[in-house]
Every structure is written in C-alpha cells, then in structure tokens.
C-alpha cells in the first residue's frame, strides 16, 4: 500500500524535526500539531485523496438530503408505469414496481453510508482493542487468537457473512454486527503488528519502570503511537465494508426491501437484463462502483501520507 500512486513531493518538509518551529519567535506548537498540519497539507495536495473526497462528499450529500433532492418518492409504487425506459419524466426510467430509479439511486446512498461506517467503526474499535492486547501480551492468548483468526480468514468474507446472516436472520442491525465481527480480526492483525514494533521502544519500558498500570501503557502510551495505522486501516476497511455489504444485499441477505439499497435493486432486477431492461440495474451498479472507488481513492491518499 505504501508506495502506491501519487508521488509526494514535500515528504522532506514533513520529516523535519519540530526544532525549527521552536526557533521562531511565535509560541512553539507541539510536535503532534506540526505533524498533523503537515499531514493535512500533504493530503490536500494528493490528487487521489481530493478525487475520492469529492466523490464521497457527493454521496454523503445524497444520503443526508436524498429525499429533498430526489424528484419522486423512492418508495412510491405505480404498477401502471412499471419498467419504463429512461425519458424526460423519469431520467433513469422506472423499475418493476414503477418506482423512479433516479430517486432510488439518490436515496439509496443513505443506508449504505450509515451501515458501512458504523460497522467499520465498531470493527476498528474491537480490532484495535484486540490488537493492543494480543500484541502487548503475546504468549498463549496471542497464539490462540491468532489461530482463530486464521480459521476465520480461511473462508472468504462473503461466505462468513452469509453464514452468520443465515444463522441470525437478515436485518440491518445484524449486518452491522456481522461485518464488524468479520472485520475485527483483520484489523486486530494490523494493529498487533504495529504494537509489536512499538513495545520495543524505550518509552514503553520507561512507563513500565514507572510502574504504570497496564491499561495506561496500552491506551495512554502505545495507542496514540499506532493511531496512524489504525486510521489507515479504518479507511481501507470502509471500502471493503461497502463492498461486502453491497454484495450481501445483492445476495438478499443484507439490507431488506423495500429499502432503496443499490445492491438490493440490482438483485431484484438483474434477471431482466437479457430482456433488455438495463436501466434498473446499470444505474445502481454505477452508484456502487463510484462510491467504492471514491472511498478507496480516499484511503489510498491517506495511507500514502501516514505510511511513509
């Protein structure tokens, strides 16, 4: 992930020690602040980051103001107008129940943009906790958890999601929890690797010698130093979460009807493609594609800045 894409010209300035800032007459900003500002500047110069941010912002606006922007009610069925081709009255045409596809595509951003970030946030929290503990203690706990993680990762994520949703029954809340649980081990593994590096440093040994309590060492000392990888992992996983949730919706085990979810719309209409009814499938497909690409460009920009 590290050396991917955008060449970052000003990497030298970011790496400079904050000593220079202290030498100026103004009150010296803390080291963390300087690094944060440099990173932000680098991000704003990254074309992939900006492109991703613009796409994501577009869909966030659709998610928040969808019902105001949409020309029609996305849930209003009208069998008389079923499967009309795109025209001036319905720019993206209508689906099998006569619902306006454009409105459903716009409002469809809402569910996925609530479910995916919530699931990813939950997974990041649990994964970070797990990674901190296993990376710090190592030994038996680490080995056991590592084996269980291996076992889960031996099966494709979609299958694990499918199995859990069959066992628990599909609902939006279940999807959030299932995605969170499935992604937790992956995030834990990344955080664990970062913690393994951090725990060798003197500041950890110093904290231990000061007789600090372990929770303080974990959350007060190590956690702030692994926040970079955690943030990168969050944005990368967000892309995967959208990918996986869309796929589960497409399989009928994700967000349930009549929600105007994109994956669900494709699921309900893909059988009609060969009959020539392409519009209820193509537009939600484009929506999913643009959202995942946007999120991944954003993630790529962030990882370039944080993983140098």
């Amino acid at each position, binding site marked *: 992930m590290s050396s991917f894409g955008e060449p970052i010209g000003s990497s030298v300035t970011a790496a400079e020690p904050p000593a220079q800032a202290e030498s100026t007459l103004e009150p010296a900003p803390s080291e963390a602040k300087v690094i944060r500002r440099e990173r932000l500047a680098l991000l704003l110069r990254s074309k992939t980051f900006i492109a991703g941010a613009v796409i994501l912002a577009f869909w966030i606006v659709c998610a928040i103001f969808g019902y105001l922007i949409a020309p029609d009610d996305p849930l209003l069925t009208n069998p008389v107008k079923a499967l009309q081709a795109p025209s001036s009255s319905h720019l993206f045409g209508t689906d099998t129940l006569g619902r306006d596809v454009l409105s459903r595509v716009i409002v469809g951003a809402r569910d996925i943009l609530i479910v995916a970030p919530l699931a990813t946030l939950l997974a990041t929290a649990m994964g970070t906790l797990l990674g901190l503990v296993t990376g710090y203690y190592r030994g038996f706990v680490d080995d056991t958890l590592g084996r269980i993680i291996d076992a889960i990762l031996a*099966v494709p994520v979609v299958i694990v999601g499918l199995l859990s949703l069959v066992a628990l029954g599909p609902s939006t809340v279940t999807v959030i929890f299932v995605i969170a649980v499935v992604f937790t081990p992956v995030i834990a593994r990344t955080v664990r690797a970062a913690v393994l590096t951090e725990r060798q440093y003197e500041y950890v040994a110093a904290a231990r010698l000061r007789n600090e309590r372990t929770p303080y060492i974990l959350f007060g000392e190590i956690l702030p130093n692994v926040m970079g990888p955690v943030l990168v992992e969050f944005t990368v996983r967000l892309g995967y979460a959208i990918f996986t949730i869309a*796929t589960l919706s497409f399989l009928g085990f994700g967000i349930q009807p009549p929600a105007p979810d994109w994956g669900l719309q494709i699921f309900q209409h893909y059988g009609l493609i060969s009959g020539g009814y392409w519009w209820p499938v193509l537009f939600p497909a484009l929506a999913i594609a643009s959202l995942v690409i946007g999120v991944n460009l954003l993630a790529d920009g962030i990882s370039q800045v944080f993983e140098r």
Partner: protein
Amino acid sequence: MTRFIAKRLGLGLITLWLLSVLVFFGTQILPGDVARRILGPFATQSAVNALNHQLGTDKSVFVQYWDWISGIFHGNLGTSVATRTSVSSIVFPALWHSAKLAILAFIIVVPLGILGGVLAALNEGRFRDRFISVGGLSATTVPEFVWAVALILVFALWLGLLPSTATAPPGSGFFSQVEYLVLPALCLVFVLFGYIARMARAGTIESLDADYTRTAVIKGLPYRTVVRRHVLRNSLLPTIAVVATQAGYLIGGLVAIELVFNYQGIGQVLYRAATQKDFPVLQSAVLIVGVVYLVATLLADLAYSLLNPRLRFESAA
C-alpha cells in the same frame, strides 16, 4: 525443510479443526429444531420426532459434531436435508466447475497483472504507472457482481458477442465451454488485476533498488538483460506466492458471480444451501472451501521457500 513442512502442515490442521468447530457450532445457533423447519408448522409432533431421529438431530450437539467429523474421515460428508442426496454428489461436481472458472481466470489475469505491475514499476511516478496503479486499484474495489452486470450489459446485451450465462449447453465442446466462461472469468480479471499488479509493482521497484541491480548495471549489462535476469527473477517470486493465496477466494468466494451467470459452482451451492437452510451441505461446503484455501497457502509457502533459500533456512531454525 521437513521440519518446516511438518510445522506448516500441523498449523494448517489445527486451523482446519478450529474452522470445523466454528462452522458447526455457528450453524447451531439457529433456534428451533431441524425437522420442524423441514416439515413445517402443521406436521404432527411424532412425525417431527421421527425425522429428527432419522437425521440424528435429536442427539446432543457434541455427538452430532463427532458424527459429522468421523463421517468426513470415512469419506462421508453427510446427506443433504433439501435434496436427500449425498453431500459429496452435490459438492464435488460444483468444486470442479469452480476450479474450471478459477483456472481460466488465473490463466488470463496472472500474466496480465504481472506485465502491468512491471510496466508500472519501470515507469514509476509517470503517467503509465499512475494509469495502471490507480486504474487497477479502482477496478479491484468494485464488487464482482457489479462487474458481472456491467459486462453482461456491454458484451451480451449491447454487442451480442458473448452469452450472458456461464453454463454451456450439455455436450458442447471445449471451446464452446470456454466461450461461456469468458465473461465470468473477465469479471475476476478485473477484480484481481489491480491486486496482482500492485504486488508485482512493489516487488519490481524493490529489486530495481537493490545492490545487485546496481552492480549489474555498473558492470555494463544492457538494461533489458538487467531487467530480465536480475530484476524480474527476484521480484516475481513473492508475487506468485501471494497470488496463490487468492485461490480460496476464487474457489469459494464467487457466490455473486455464479448467481448472476447462473453457474453451478461451489459458491452457488453455498448460496442455495444457505437460503434453504440445508446445514449438512453448508457445513461441508464451507469446510471444503477452507481446505482449498489452506492447501493453496501451504503450496504457496512451499514453493516460495523452495525458491528462496533465505526463507527456507530461517524458518527451519
């Protein structure tokens, strides 16, 4: 070397056993008894009891787990609740279908991905690199069913070049079968290209930077020879090893593609078993997907260590 293999094999078996436990007890969370689900709410209790007894679902969970596992060791994967046929007769033909699709996809995408990655690395930072890298990344992140419907729209509906299903009519020859598999394989190419290209690019850049490359250049070898003999040989090793780990996804993770193209692979079997709550099929199919993944990673590790003496000795120590 033997110790390395034994260690890997042992870890693989432990992982597999854990997977079997997770899968088995995971599917037991479901409330209600199996026979009642099959027979419906209007069946008499005695009929439900009889079926439960016949299926073995009246025994304790641990006994059921033991029956399942010992059955597998005797080559008996169980009986499908939905079709009443043996699970092996459902799972293994599907596995073969999946393998065919995976092999075709691999044949197309591995050379293409490596070529793309090497090209990108040789043009690092320039337009060609950016195009391959960002394009590949974007293509990889789009869910495969989105690629599937997009490709069907373009190649089957609008251009009329290729069939929109993946299953060739029975009795069709090799090339016609391949023709039917082109579109689903193409979806996989899009999904995997960026991933493989990224690996190949990283590996190539690393070995372009290495001292032996500088030495080769300084001693006056032509650029082409340096790239071919010194750079590529070292850079492609990790790429190929990592690519092999994708086999698990290719064999078991293609539920959505197989659904769109109506292809009877293992993904389709898993999906149908999931919707019908056919747990014997579901459990064994998931376990087989796990076996495929673990065997593929094991082989990848072995190939990698055979070709890379540094790793071999390090692991044996």
